[in-house]
């Protein structure tokens, strides 16, 4: 019996009805409800995480900011590879990301982006590698992702890759795959498509809790036309 218990402590083995026991350090996502569902209690290090999302601007990056800020405050470097638009630095500062520990890479082609991600993983400099692999004419081959997974192994690095929703139909070597979609009132719905251990049953609702200025239930009442442009400010 004790031999069996010992065997089950091996990180590559888990029972079908529990979450995999993950020994490697993970980085808390900053959302307790999400952390409870992630093996290791956060974004895994030394392995690929895929986030499948249709389009931009639903809060997919905001979801990562708490973890990225935590790594930043620990003095770790992070590298953003092929972001879809120019990251707006004041927002990053506000979220707690140290600009002095951020590298932004804007390659022209997706093959260069994959190469850059691999270099970043191999260098073991970065605490986080965030990559965008949008839908391209040629889908990202499995072997390319496998290379990244191998490069990430044994490194203390969180690898977060944004991929199009359609990529959910292809198989992937990533140990964690999430699909996210917008929900009402500043919330995100997270479906865990793949994780180590028992499959997730219900989607998770996250309150991004950003934009204190935004109350989504009550849209700003002032229509633009009513702003008196010609009158004195007070």
């Amino acid at each position, binding site marked *: 019996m004790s031999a069996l218990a010992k065997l089950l402590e091996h990180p590559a083995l888990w029972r079908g009805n529990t979450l995999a026991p993950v020994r490697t350090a993970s980085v808390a996502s900053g959302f307790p409800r999400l952390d409870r569902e992630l093996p290791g209690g956060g974004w895994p290090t030394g392995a690929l995480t895929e986030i499948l999302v249709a*389009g*931009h*601007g*639903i*809060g*997919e*990056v*905001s979801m990562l900011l708490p973890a990225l800020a935590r790594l930043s405050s620990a003095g770790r*470097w992070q*590298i953003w590879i092929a*972001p*879809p*638009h*120019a*990251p*707006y*630095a*004041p*927002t*990053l*500062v*506000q979220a707690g990301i140290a*600009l*002095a*520990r*951020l*590298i*932004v*890479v*804007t*390659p*022209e082609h997706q093959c*260069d982006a994959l*190469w*850059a991600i691999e*270099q*970043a993983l191999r*260098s*073991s*400099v*970065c605490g986080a590698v965030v990559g965008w692999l949008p839908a391209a004419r040629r889908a990202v081959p499995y072997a390319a992702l496998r290379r990244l997974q191998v490069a990430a192994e044994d490194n203390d690095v969180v690898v977060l890759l944004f991929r199009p929703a359609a990529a959910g139909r292809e198989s992937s070597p990533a140990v964690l795959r999430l699909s996210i979609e*917008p*929900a*009402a009132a500043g919330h995100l719905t997270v479906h865990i498509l793949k994780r180590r251990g028992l499959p997730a049953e219900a989607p998770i609702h996250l309150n991004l809790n*950003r*934009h*204190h*200025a*935004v*109350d*989504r239930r009550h*849209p*700003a009442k*002032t*229509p*633009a*036309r009513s*702003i008196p*442009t010609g009158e004195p400010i007070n």
Partner: protein
Amino acid sequence: MTDAHRVGIANDVALAKGIRPGMALSAAYALAPSMHVKQRDRLREADAIEHLAAWAGQFTPNVVLENQAGLLLEVSGSLSLFGGLEPIMTRLRTGILALGFTASMACAPTARAAWWLALSGKETVIREHDSLAAKLAALSIYTLGWSSDQLTMLTAIGTNTLGEVMALPRAGFAKRFGRALLTELDQACGRIAEPRRFFTPPEQFEARLELPAAVEAASALLFAAKRLLTELAGFLVARASGVQHFDLLLEHDDLPPTVITINLVTAHRDEPHFTLLVRERFDRLTLPAPVYAIALRAPVLTPVSGVNLTLFPDENEASTDWTRLVERLRARLGAAAVHGLTIVAEHRPEYVVRAAEPGTQPPPLHFGERPLWLFTTPRPLLEIDAKPFLRGRLALMAGPERIESGWWDGNDVARDYFIAQDEDRSLLWVFRERSDARGWFLQGLFA
């Protein structure tokens, strides 16, 4: 190999045909009419020796150019640093091989003895002073670089080895062959000190390598480039410096040379890393014409700070260094594609963010509610019923925030910013232009 119409060096085939060094070239042609003759180029030889001297400076600061034909290294002070004589000799041998040369090496307690042993082609290591005379005694007098007159006289009195010469009476020897030769013998045995002028490496690095054949593919140049980079790395260790910038010049026949400039984030002298960066550049290079020679120029040397002053770069240290990652990415993607971010005190959103060198500390500034992605050029939106429209009607969630600034440089803005939500529940940052060109614009996304 010939030197002034006399055979200088002959290979084994030539020796078998009876050709001997020192023989007149015409006599050699009589023995072997089909032989290949190469002219000795003393200038290039001296140049090569000088480059090797600069490279060898990494093993000891005391390097001597001996008669423009060889190098003397005083290594007694470097033994403990390198872990003994054997490691130094191994490093020298592999290093010289990597630079494209072969060396005849010898080691002895006196400079002249070491020089004579090396000239004789016997790879001897003598550590003890006592065994010096005995080892030297076996050397032939013909390999020591003595003049032919002296050699003829010595042979005439029946001496062929150094041991027989040293057995001659001192006074008579000095009278017949001159004081200079006696002094050389005394110096070899360590009876007289032999001070020498040490080589001073130049202030900047410049090296050139002619390729044996024209090269058409850039990737095939890597081998030659690596040779130059190895030389550069050794030179930099000797100078206790690093480089932040160097140029590789690929010389063509009638076109101006192709210049590859490598810029580094910080100055260092890590040869494997240099090679990696150059390889990335070569991989993406198409040559306008075949390359005949390759040159390396490092005009400015930067003293490297204490941390990097390890004699051989430590692998762990290199792998955790973020500057190496940035350099590697830039070598393939270009400098502009890899950057950090900083912010400046400015109200107009599109002017706030600047690309900066990674590691730049931004000033502590605070802004209002801002999107994550910003479009530098705002995208015009349709306006329907006084509301902005993008694939559907946009709901204004927060605002307005008025930004009116920049009248002094002509790019002034007068805008009211709102946070809007589209029908996919994405949050957008939109503004309404208040100046003459009215209308709604999309400037950012809250991702």
